[in-house]
């Protein structure tokens, strides 16, 4: 299943490069550029920015799409399209929070939570967009060094909550977190999410779902050539509560007694309004 998917993606990637070459016309006999440029040339660097720096979460918030775009300075791409010569990987990461992971097992015929591990810091949101699947871009060591990829998210058990678990059990808990976060659309993989426009420009659209946790998001942009990071850039987006949403949330958490009294008053008032309104109607 997984191999088939990979093969499919590869085919798609090949088709894309092929079509790109067709558009350019000249020599199709040159496959992928492997020539390393002479050392005298200035080193390439990446510049990036995000379409939205601040995002307001209001009662009407249903998610938002941000665009991460950038350019490669001193691009040495031999042709008009940088695809294939350079690879760009964009990682958007939310504020890390401690997370409790619980596992159910059968006890006397009932499925109940029996074991749990608390991970110290798990990114609340994690999206990777790349110009092609990250496994093709670089080796696992490089990816791990830069914490790129869902399986390179650092999750360490807090305190002694991880004590007594074997390595494969810990791995199962970690896999559980990744799977659940993926289901909630909070962990996203876009293996072809970065597209090049010409020699040095690239862009990527990243969808933030409605349930994205509020807080700062960090967007890291990596420029790869021949499986190595040649340059990186860090940008930020801040999600903050605004409007009624902010008011209600702050009230509930800071002045929780007043909030509770207001909730009671609203309920009582609604009940009384309903009873007078409908009595008049039916009487």
């Amino acid at each position: 299943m997984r191999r088939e998917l990979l093969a499919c993606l590869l085919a798609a990637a090949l088709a894309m490069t092929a079509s790109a070459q067709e558009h350019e016309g000249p020599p199709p006999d040159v496959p992928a550029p492997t020539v390393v440029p002479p050392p005298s040339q200035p080193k390439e660097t990446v510049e990036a920015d995000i379409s939205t720096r601040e995002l307001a979460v209001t009662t009407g918030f249903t998610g938002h799409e941000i665009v991460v775009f950038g350019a490669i300075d001193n691009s040495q791409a031999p042709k008009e399209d940088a695809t294939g010569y350079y690879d760009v990987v964009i990682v958007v990461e939310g504020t890390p929070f401690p997370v409790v992971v619980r596992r159910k097992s059968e006890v006397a015929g009932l499925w109940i939570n029996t074991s749990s591990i608390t991970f110290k810091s798990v990114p609340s949101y994690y999206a990777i967009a790349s110009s092609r699947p990250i496994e093709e871009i670089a080796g696992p060591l490089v990816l791990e060094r830069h914490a790129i990829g869902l399986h390179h998210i650092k999750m360490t058990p807090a305190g002694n909550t991880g004590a007594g678990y074997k390595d494969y059990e810990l791995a199962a808990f970690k896999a559980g977190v990744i799977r659940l976060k993926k289901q909630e659309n909070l962990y996203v993989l876009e293996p072809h999410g970065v597209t090049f426009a010409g020699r040095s420009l690239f862009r990527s659209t990243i969808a933030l779902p409605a349930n994205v946790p509020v807080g700062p998001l960090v967007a890291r942009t990596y420029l790869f050539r021949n499986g190595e990071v040649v340059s990186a850039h860090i940008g930020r987006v801040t999600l903050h509560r605004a409007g009624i949403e902010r008011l209600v949330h702050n009230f509930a958490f800071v002045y929780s007694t007043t909030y509770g009294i207001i909730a009671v008053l609203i309920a009582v008032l609604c009940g009384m309004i309903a009873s007078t309104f409908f009595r008049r109607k039916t009487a």
Partner: protein
Amino acid sequence: MRPGVEGRARVSAQAKLMNIYLPIAEMSVNVVLFLGMGSAVGFLSGLFGIGGGFLLTPLLIFMGVPTAVAVGTGSMQILASSVSGAIAQYRRNNVDVKMGAVLVAGGVIGSVVGVSLMKILRQIGQFELFVSLSYVTFLGAVGALMLIESIGTIQRQRTGQAAPVRKTGQHSWVHGLPLKMRFHRSKLYISALPPAMIGAFVGFMAAIMGVGGGFVMVPAMIYLLRVPTSIVIGTSLFQIVFVMAATTLLQAMENKAVDVVLGLLLIVGGVIGAQFGAAAGARLKGEQLRFMLAALVLLVCLRIGWDLMVKPTELFSIGPVIGGGA
């Protein structure tokens, strides 16, 4: 009960135009869908003359609302729907205020215990299990009793037999307890302990399950305390209003589990649905209604029980770290 990820996905797939972001549940929901849910539950509560908390809370959990928020916000909705009923009963002089006060005193204590227990259970990750087990136990017991009673009544009516006459005026163990009080409106001279205990139990259930508890309080008052039937409904509504107000406040303070935006959606839907339900209920016989209600109660019970018994497709669950708990 497992939070429905599918439910959340389904909601987000619908037209985003009618969505509203719930500030405490921290999710975006469809306004029409939740208004509809509120009015459906309101219709049933109007039809059967019940609070409907036992339907609403599980429904909210199935829709992906966190269990704690479903329970906390449920108490706000029950408060709103009980207020009008309580006022009407009070005007008709169907409330034994003294008995009600004893029930409320017990209820508030039960609610405090329940809310604190809920906090501990959330920390150790067993809150969802506890809620499910409470639902299965109470709904199973009450549903089965109601089913037996209503089938018996229907059968007796078919064969033309008279209902067995209940012996009244008999003294039970209730009458041997100390702290006797005179409840004028109910024409009773009994110990204050049993009503306080019933009140406390109902308050505890209210906090843990997000229900009003009328389905436990009404039979307990009739059969254990021998309160006249005409007084029972009004007095239990009186208790529900005050205990639910206290529970809503405690849930907001202790568990930050009351979402006013969600609460308003459910209240508005519920009020509308209840009017139609009451009109429809007037056309049906009492025992028919009780039979249908019993079937509904047992269905909810089986649905929750099923989720506990069948191996879940996802064994893992994730949640935030609450308080200082491990």
